[in-house]
């Protein structure tokens, strides 16, 4: 019956909208509770330091290697394009601006979501599946302040540091390919870069971007882990959702932040 099909379609749309609004409210409440319970993560700082080790230090290798290769590819492709117009001396500004403004914060956030975000979700999801969170509640220990808040602040602190390292080593990769391997003039490489990159406009805005991405990725990873059904399948789905949602949110936020920060420049 056609009208039954239409009724079913409308019901499913309505259910999706209601579910989406409910989930948004749940995420907001979870985020607010994390912020309110953050005091404990600063009072017992070793909890946060331990999480910085697992989210930041353990992500370092993938960030540094990726940053170096991205910088090298930018150097090579940039040179190929710029030499057609006889302006290969502008290679430094091309590499630096691309990395500091966009690729550094965005790619570091995507790698962070894949490496640290998925690990956070899996860890918390598994703690839920093995009823460790319930056990904490039974012992009157708040799992949000003991488990979630330290991981949240560790992610927020680690992300800008990782993005800065990604950009710095990327610039070195561009220098390696452009100046050392191809032979672009070293003086004009650095001077054009320094003339083009503005500290407040480019570098500070890049750091602000990476802080926002750090908040978004860590909050998504924590929520997905905390909300995961306590089964093996549920945890695996939550881990996948963390990576997919984080990637989409980072790219969407990047567009919005770029419009506000660099419009008209």
């Amino acid at each position, binding site marked *: 019956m056609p009208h039954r099909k239409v009724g079913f379609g409308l019901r499913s749309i309505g259910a999706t909208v209601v579910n989406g609004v409910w989930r948004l409210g749940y995420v907001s409440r979870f985020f607010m509770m994390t912020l309110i319970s953050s005091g404990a993560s600063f009072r017992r700082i*070793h909890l946060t*330091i*331990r999480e*910085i*080790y697992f989210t*930041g*230090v353990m992500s*370092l290798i993938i960030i540094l290697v990726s940053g170096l290769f991205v910088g090298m590819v930018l150097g090579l492709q940039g040179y190929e394009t710029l030499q057609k*117009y006889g*302006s290969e001396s502008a290679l430094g500004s091309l590499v*630096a601006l691309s990395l*500091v403004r966009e690729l550094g914060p965005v790619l570091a956030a995507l790698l962070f979501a894949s490496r640290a975000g998925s690990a956070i979700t899996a860890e918390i999801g598994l703690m839920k599946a093995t009823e460790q969170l319930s056990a904490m509640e039974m012992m009157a220990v708040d799992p949000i302040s003991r488990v979630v808040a330290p991981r949240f602040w560790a992610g927020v*602190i*680690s992300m*800008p*540091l*990782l993005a*800065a*390292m990604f*950009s*710095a*080593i990327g*610039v070195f990769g561009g220098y390696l390919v452009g100046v050392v391997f191809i032979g672009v003039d070293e003086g004009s490489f*650095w001077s054009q*870069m*320094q*003339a083009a*990159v*503005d*500290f407040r406009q*480019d*570098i500070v805005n890049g*750091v602000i971007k990476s802080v926002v991405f750090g908040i978004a990725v860590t909050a998504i990873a924590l929520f997905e882990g905390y909300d995961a059904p306590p089964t093996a399948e549920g945890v695996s789905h939550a881990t996948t959702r963390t990576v997919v949602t984080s990637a989409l949110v980072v790219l969407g936020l990047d567009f919005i932040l770029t419009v506000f920060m660099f419009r008209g*420049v």
Partner: protein
Amino acid sequence: MERTTLDMWVGAFVVGGLIALLILAFKVGNLSGYDGSETYKVYGEFENIGGLKIKAPVKSSGVVVGRVSDIQFDNKTFQALVEIRLSKNYQFPKDTSASILTSGLLGEQYIGLEAGGDEKNLKNGDNFILTQSAMVMEQLIGQFLFSKAHDEGGDKKTAQGGNKKAVVQ
């Protein structure tokens, strides 16, 4: 893992991140070359500013002496009003002329100052009396084509005149 080892790794990570930020600030962003000296504002009205942008350098004899701080459109004169911040270390005579120039063939546009001979110097809020607009490629090509056509027309007339004379003779 032992707590001291953990602390050492995290400490090294934070130091590494801060060093990366310092490299970006001083080596990439040229914060070391930041000129924090005091400035004074002067204004220039141009018929056409071309592709001049805010923060474009203002140079005199090739040395950066200031930056473009604002660009507005003057509703009364129908010209572009450019606000320039010059460093107080550099003083220019009142009859200094300002021109919009291009560095290289495809480079960025900047303002070039050519000092005059007046004994009084430019002060905060003064205007440049002499300004020269940006070179617009279309106008230049148009002028070139016009002069070329004019020359060819002149040559033909001369040639025709010469023939007539020859016929008459």
